[in-house]
């Protein structure tokens, strides 16, 4: 075996390299700059890093299509394919949007920017690597890279106790969950003799459905526990509302979308490429639980961040519906639907949390639904934009959220999972109520006290504009994204 990486090897991790370099630059610049003036400069550097990462991802796509590059690199630990590029793109897009949304937020909340942007980029390294890794140990390493960054980011509002609580809680429960994942990997190795997903897939595909080795069943279940924790699927969701409530809003925007997308990529690879046994009922139950618990708990929330946290649990449930498919020709529709869902959920949720972060103002004081009373009058643009993100989260046509749900539900219907679809539809109806509650309060209530609303600053304006444009694009012309997703699934097998 040749132990020296070649050119194509470097291309296969080019986005990760770019992100790491820029993360290091920020870390080195930070100590030599004046603390009070460094925020904007470092934000600018991080933004350049994010954009270059996106360019690197596009280049990867070009490289894959126009040279004989097989996509496998680093001794078959990393695989670049249309699938991984899709998720790289989503992660890069979320990173850019979050950097833009944090641009002024840092100053308002008096947060030190150096570590913040650095950790954001390092976290993105882990998430990117998760979507291209095809080897369980590397996936574990990537998962840890991304998790450790988000543990720290959650506690970045140092002055507030609730933020520290959020960080510690996330860290303790998170490390517990990753150990489950690691245990699952070990059992999987025991069952199949390999940690490479393709080898595992070959080994497990020899067995008839429902006759795999017991060890593999347990391994899949344990890995699923670890991953379900990361996507906040019930019953592993308990941490979510507390952590989301305490963490800075842009960080929540980040950790509720990008790591989720990456973990879903891992799940897709393990479940489908790895021919994981026993997955359908496992996912059926978790999807139904997540939707129901998330939506019902969201009904009674008064804090907007907690409300959106429960809503993100529910959305994880909708998304998982696409995974609950038997191995068949139709399965690819489910995967494509799931990919579309991650993309559209990412843009609309980042947008929603960006609005929440801006409105909360210094110390994140204004986060209850009552605080939003009369926002439609005092800041019509902010209210209108927030309304559109909420409508997309409900699943109203003309927004990305609608087609996301539509594709997932129809993929599940093709698999004859009628029960799950009925649960999903009822849940969407319940969900409409609590999102509408915010809209009603914004437009139809008079404010009890005058809460100052700062005008929308430039960075946030870009973040909102871009995510809104993406949400509407996915809702009006979903074709290209869906076709790309379907094509990447074809190449997956």
């Amino acid at each position: 075996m040749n132990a020296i990486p070649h050119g194509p090897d470097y291309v296969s991790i080019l986005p990760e390299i770019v992100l790491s370099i820029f993360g290091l630059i920020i870390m080195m610049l930070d100590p030599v700059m004046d603390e009070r003036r460094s925020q904007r400069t470092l934000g600018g550097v991080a933004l350049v890093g994010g954009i270059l990462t996106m360019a690197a991802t596009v280049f990867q796509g070009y490289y894959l299509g126009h040279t004989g590059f097989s996509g496998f690199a680093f001794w078959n630990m990393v695989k670049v394919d249309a699938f991984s590029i899709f998720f790289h793109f989503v992660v890069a897009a979320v990173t850019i949007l979050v950097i833009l949304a944090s641009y002024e937020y840092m100053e308002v909340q008096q947060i030190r920017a150096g570590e913040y942007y650095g950790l954001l980029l390092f976290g993105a390294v882990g998430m990117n690597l998760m979507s291209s890794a095809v080897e369980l140990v590397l996936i574990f390493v990537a998962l840890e890279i991304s998790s450790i960054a988000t543990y720290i980011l959650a506690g970045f509002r140092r002055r507030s106790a609730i933020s520290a609580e959020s960080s510690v809680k996330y860290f303790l429960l998170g490390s517990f969950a990753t150990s489950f994942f690691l245990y699952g990997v070990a059992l999987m190795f025991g069952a199949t003799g390999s940690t490479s997903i393709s080898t595992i897939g070959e080994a497990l595909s020899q067995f008839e459905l429902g006759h795999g080795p017991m060890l593999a069943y347990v391994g899949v279940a344990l890995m699923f526990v670890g991953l379900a924790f990361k996507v906040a699927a019930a019953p592993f969701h308990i941490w979510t509302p507390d952590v989301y409530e305490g963490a800075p809003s842009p960080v929540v925007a980040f950790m509720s979308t990008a790591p989720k997308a990456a973990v879903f990529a891992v799940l897709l690879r393990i479940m489908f490429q790895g021919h994981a046994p026993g997955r359908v009922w496992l996912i059926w139950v978790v999807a139904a639980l997540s939707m129901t618990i998330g939506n019902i708990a969201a009904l009674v929330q008064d804090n907007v961040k907690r409300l959106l946290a429960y809503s993100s649990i529910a959305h994880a449930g909708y998304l998982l519906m696409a995974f609950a498919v038997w191995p068949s020709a139709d399965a690819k529709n489910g995967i494509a639907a799931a990919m579309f869902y991650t993309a559209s959920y990412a843009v609309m949720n980042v947008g929603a949390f960006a609005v929440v972060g801006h409105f909360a103002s210094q110390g994140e004081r204004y986060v209850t639904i009552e605080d939003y009373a009369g926002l439609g009058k005092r800041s019509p643009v902010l209210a209108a934009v927030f309304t559109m993100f909420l409508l997309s989260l409900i699943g109203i046509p003309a927004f990305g959220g609608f087609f996301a749900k539509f594709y997932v539900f129809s993929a599940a219907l093709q698999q004859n999972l009628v029960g799950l679809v009925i649960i999903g539809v009822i849940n969407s109806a319940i969900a409409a109520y609590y999102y509408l509650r915010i809209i009603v309060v914004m437009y139809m209530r008079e404010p009890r006290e005058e809460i100052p609303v700062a005008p929308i600053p430039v960075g946030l304006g870009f973040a909102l504009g871009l995510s809104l444009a993406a949400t509407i694009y996915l809702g009006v012309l979903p074709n290209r994204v869906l076709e790309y997703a379907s094509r990447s699934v074809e190449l997956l097998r």
Partner: protein
Amino acid sequence: MNWLDQNILTLVTFIPAAGGLLLMLAPRRDREIRWFALLVSFIAFIASLHLPAHFHRDHAGFQFEQNVPWISSPNIHYHMGMDGISMWLVVLTTFLTPLCVLISWTSIHERVKEFFILLLVLESALLGVFVALDLFLFYFFWEATLIPMALLIGMFGHGRRVYAAVKFFLYTMIASVFMLAGILWLYAKTGSFDFVVLQNQIHSGGIPDFAGASFWLFLGFFVAFAVKVPLFPFHTWLPDAHVEAPTAGSVLLAGVLLKMGTYGMLRFNLGLFPEQARANAGWIGVLALIGIVYGALVAMVQPNMKKLIAYSSISHLGFVVLGIFSFTQAGLNGAMFIMLAHGVATGGLFMLAGILYERRHTYEISEFGGLATPMPAYARFFLVVVLASVGLPLLNGFIGEFLVLSGAFQAKMWWGIVGATGVIWSACYLLWMYQRVFFGQVKHDVNNSLPDLNLREKTALWPAVVMALAMGVAPMLWLNGIDPAVKNVLSPSTEKNISLAGEGARDTQALASKVVGQ
């Protein structure tokens, strides 16, 4: 076909929304915003006049069609088209919107920009509902009407506006889920959302499992439309929404939004499921009759002017449903005609009620009395509109009710008899209200000093009054476009009907000339 004919529906539909988008970018200068909104809605009206001007009246199928692929998976087309049924509803919408702008000129003085943006977006969505021929596109516009209307009620309404807005939203939203389920079922079986394709496939019996599912599909669509109409047991949202809505909201709600329901029944329930529609006509007719009588009786005892008009809408829309499910040519023509006449007359009534509210900030009938003395011009306009709504011959309400009742008599004798009492009831409650508001001595001193109509208000009212008279005197101008489409709905096989259309037009002509001759 030239470029304009091909794109006219898109133009008409999206001119208001484009105006709304421009308004979003405009600075908050209320005066200019009002003029701009008036201009945009007027341009949309002028553009929509192209439709009746170039409409082939002897042709039963869809015209001005535009069909381009929009999304490949699912297979959604941007398919717009129009026949005699939708043409006048489109023109009614564009006709009422400028009047709505005029009537809201001074009554809306806060958040003016938002108000007119919502109004224009609402207009676009309404127009889209009437011309969309792709079921998905239809559903999209259908849902799109919901948000601006709910916001108009919730942001600009009166006292219990939030309650009314949420009630309106939830009722319609939940009901339309059933329609969506039906649409998705059809798509799953046929791979198409296209109305024309689906109609042909259903007609040729090419859809698997259709026979077993057709009742549920019919019901799914019917529930969504019945809530919108609103048909008797589903009507409770309407009085609340009307009483709390701002005047322009009420005008569009009564004038156009309710017609979305009856239009949907005519287009989809009858168009896609003709057998089921006939099989279920019995109980639907009974519900319509209950609506006619119940709406009228409740209207009679309302102390609130706007609530009275709202219940009168329930009664009048009962006639429309009765006409549709009588399955006679006269009944369907009459139903279509009432939709238009009710839009003009009830729209006018709501405008008049709004004018009074602007002066006295109340709708209570007992607060008024003897208004004919201080406001003579107002009283005259009110009288014409009330008489049009009552159904006085030579005004537009009469033609439609006559046709529907003659259709109902053909269908079932007792339907006609019970339905005809509705005409009497409507005379009772409307004329009694008129008497209490306008005749006698002025009971409250404040009313003595009420200013009469100003030029702007007269400008808003004249078109409605002229239209009420014109439709009553020359109904054939409207009916000869409607009739071929109605014939087509009654016996849905396309080739046969084009030839039948001319003959059918003569039938109605005979009927209508008899009507006018009396």
